[in-house]
């Protein structure tokens, strides 16, 4: 059957083929060696199918639990049975298509086509179908899906992003730029969009902005899928420790701290001695501005795992932010004893030393921080600011040599970060003035 057959016909054929194969017993879940929570969840869903073997929801729910715990072969069987029992339910072909997106794009495309036949109004499904078609080299069809997704939901950045990608691959940089700028305006926090926009800008000759965006992208989360509430239901089925932690990290990355906290609370209820969960909870509370609770969580993590460097770093950071500088310095120094190149701790130690007026220690730490400078754009900006502040302080007390040295370092950082010439010129101006 050629893919030129209209999508609706393909989808109907697919649905009919599923309907033809009835299944009596659900495939048993793999429960050997899995965490008790996972075992319980899988068996609960499995038994639901046994209790109601003709209920599409039960089969689909079981498929979701299986997929969430990476038992994909069994999940595929469960979804297909759910679809047979309830052929008008968008969820089952959609989950099938999404699950197979990276595993078997050809099948994925067929299931997603079936899903959008059942409900063509859900923009994320069209975006996903577009992406899969693009993977298959079917860029005309992919572009069509992105266009329809954009008309359905003009706020979904992934639709113009897809159109931009296709235009860029076709060497139409101007069209690509228009689509990608639109995607970027809708969401500046998606790394994939920022790096692709950077490429398009480079191709049209705007190298300065291209470089700035390339640097900006470094600090962004890798997330490629925008909000897809219908797929989030599968992600939320996962109850293993790693999934809780991964979900929490993702929520934290994309700025949904409260959702991260909810996941971590669930995990800590059943596993209160999970140091990693306490550490993440500390980071979440830090993000929410609850420094006291952040310090408590970091301390709890360290009590469980004294060598958990990340926890000590968070603790030092929140103590510093909370104005408890002596304690922050103590924690930073403890961590620096085992991780002498820890950039964040070097910065804290620098700032505490500066506050104390301990110039020698401050210079030693800032030099180490500079020579071990991180790739994290936020921390690099912080270091640059510290260097400029130091330069001004040195200039104010007449130490032009130190002032010049710090400004030179700031200029090097700016250059490495692809800062626009204007910013470097400004630093140079201060540098020349202080010289």
């Amino acid at each position: 059957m050629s893919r030129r057959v209209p999508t609706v016909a393909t989808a109907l054929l697919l649905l009919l083929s599923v309907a033809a194969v009835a299944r009596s017993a659900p495939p048993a879940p793999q429960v050997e060696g899995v965490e008790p929570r996972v075992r319980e969840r899988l068996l609960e869903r499995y038994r639901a199918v046994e209790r109601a073997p003709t209920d599409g929801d039960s089969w689909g729910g079981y498929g979701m639990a299986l997929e969430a715990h990476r038992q994909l072969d069994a999940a595929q069987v469960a979804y297909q049975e759910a679809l047979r029992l309830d052929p008008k339910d968008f969820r089952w072909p959609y989950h099938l298509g999404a699950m197979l997106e990276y595993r078997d794009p050809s099948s994925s495309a067929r299931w997603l086509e079936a899903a959008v036949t059942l409900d063509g109004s859900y923009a994320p499904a069209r975006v996903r179908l577009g992406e899969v078609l693009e993977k298959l080299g079917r860029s005309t069809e992919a572009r069509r899906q992105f266009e329809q997704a954009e008309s359905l939901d003009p706020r979904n950045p992934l639709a113009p992003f897809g159109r931009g990608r296709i235009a860029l691959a076709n060497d139409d940089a101007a069209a690509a730029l228009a689509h990608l700028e639109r995607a970027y305006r809708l969401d500046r926090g998606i790394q994939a969009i920022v790096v692709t926009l950077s490429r398009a800008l480079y191709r049209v000759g705007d190298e300065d902005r291209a470089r700035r965006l390339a640097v900006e992208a470094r600090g962004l989360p890798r997330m490629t899928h925008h909000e897809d509430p219908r797929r989030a239901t599968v992600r939320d089925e996962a109850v293993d420790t790693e999934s809780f932690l991964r979900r929490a990290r993702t929520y934290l990355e994309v700025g949904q701290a409260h959702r991260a906290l909810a996941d971590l609370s669930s995990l800590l209820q059943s596993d209160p001695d999970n140091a990693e969960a306490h550490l993440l909870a500390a980071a979440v509370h830090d993000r929410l501005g609850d420094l006291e609770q952040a310090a408590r969580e970091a301390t709890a993590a360290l009590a469980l795992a004294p060598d958990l460097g990340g926890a000590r770093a968070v603790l030092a950071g929140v103590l510093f932010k909370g104005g408890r500088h002596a304690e922050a310095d103590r924690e930073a120094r403890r961590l620096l004893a085992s991780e002498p190149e820890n950039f964040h701790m070097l910065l804290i130690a620098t700032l505490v030393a500066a506050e104390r007026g301990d110039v020698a220690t401050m210079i030693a730490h800032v030099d180490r921080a500079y020579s071990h400078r991180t790739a994290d754009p936020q921390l690099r900006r912080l270091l640059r600011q510290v260097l400029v502040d130091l330069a001004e302080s040195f200039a104010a007390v007449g130490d032009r040599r130190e002032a010049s040295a710090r400004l030179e370092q700031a200029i090097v950082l700016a250059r490495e970060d692809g800062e626009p010439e204007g910013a470097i010129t400004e630093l140079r101006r201060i540098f020349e003035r202080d010289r």
Partner: protein
Amino acid sequence: MAVAGCGRDDDSATATRSAGEGESSAATGQGSAPAFEEVALELGVDFVHRTGSEGSYPMPAIMGGGLCVFDADGDGDLDLYFVDGGDFGAAGGDAARGHRFVRREADGRYADATASSGLAGGGHGMGCAVADVDNDGDLDVFVTAYGRDTFYRNLGSGRFRDDTAAAGLGDGSWSASAAFLDYDRDGWLDLFVTRYVDYDPRRVCALEGGRLDYCGPTQFSGVHDLLYRNRGDGTFEDRSREAGIATAQLRGLGVLAADFDDDGWIDVYVANDSDPNNLWINQRDGTFRDDAVLLGAAYNRYGVGEAGMGIATGDLDRDGDLDLVVTHLIEETNTLYENRGALGFEDMTAVSGFGLPSLPYTGFGVALFDADLDGDLDLAVANGAVKLRPRALGDRPDWLWNDYAEPNLFLLRDGSGRFVEPTSGAGAFTRDLDITRGLVASDLDGDGDLDLVASNVEGPARIYRNPLQEGLGEKRRWLDVRPMLPELRREALGARLAVVTSAGTRVVHALPPTSYLSGGHARAHLALLPDERVEAFEVRWPDGTSERFAMPGAEGVVTLEQGSGGEP
């Protein structure tokens, strides 16, 4: 010019589909590849890589074991060096076994010469690279490791001395692949070493569901790579910071040094695992700038940083510049970046037939080479999982690593330039189920077709003999071009060679097969078509000078010495 048949626009993409119905169907069931025969034991190579990690999951154990193929003793044939994983079960961690060096004998068999060569080594080895760093006419060896790296100076006749401390090359972190290059054009070969992650062996990882498994890279921070400048006095200095390399603290695995922007200066491409790749463009002043994002070689077409492992390069579309292929994790495709000159690179994976066959496997070592001597570059990929596969493929249920074993992948180019999976595979190379890491294509037996040497995690070294020439009544003609710098007494790493023939001009580069954790000679191999006749070679040497060598009718091994050619 694009890869033939790989449409850049929608219309040509449609045209391609109408012939092959898209990648999924076009990528299988076509053409025939050489049926590689596995002959390691027959040739006397019985090395088995071990890690001593039974029942535990130390991450370095699943990543390593590379190899080098090189003429260690200067007798004109290719010897083999396999890097062992050490013993993670032993207190102190160092291995009792060590690496294995086998010398090729006159009868074509290999003899264990590890002890006499001085290359036994120890520790948790990862990979190796070879080059003549002291310009004395023989190849020295650098071994990367989880732990201290080792530098072996070749004293001549295949005897080596551990000169790590004297050379200043004993970094103690987790390094992966290495590439030699003369980035500052001072005539001395410098060294680029990728470093992987800041690994904490105490960390225990599990899959969804809770089953224990090897940790993934994102559990640990990345570490910046190292650039060592060769001072020319037997020592190296770490210039990573001064050169700008240290600004990227990513999870480096594969590395390839070549002139990607065709300006005559050697650049460096690094495949990072779960991070964007780096394309360090040589700024000609001792520094590099990472232009991978702008040039489209950091992320795939979808703007996603993939799990970069191994790298190979070659001029796939015959437009004179170097295209790139990078191997990746299961459920990511391997990726083909087509070099479009000033526009940078374009991810042509989807339309070239290159991607879908790779989805079920985790790729590491990779070779772009003309396996069937038909004039275009084919692809071999070393596969093996790093986490329990969703569905086991291994055929040895009693083997602890059975659920990580995968078949290797081989793709031929069809007449239109697309990659296709040959109908009946590529012999033992695609039949064996191993956890393969290192891979080098090299003409071990000198018959003109390229054989494959592979290294496996917790498994035997493999030598896959290419039987192509043997089965032909009339042998196919080929070139093995070896550009040399007689004043420096060594190979001209990175030399760009334009081979002018009656059928046109083809550009090849003399590059070592760094692949993944692997190394070898800097030579260029290509096939000559039945009616094709060589007229001349135009060489751009690593120092930027150019020469023309008029050599009508040349074939077989061709050595080009700098200074003996004419004006270009």
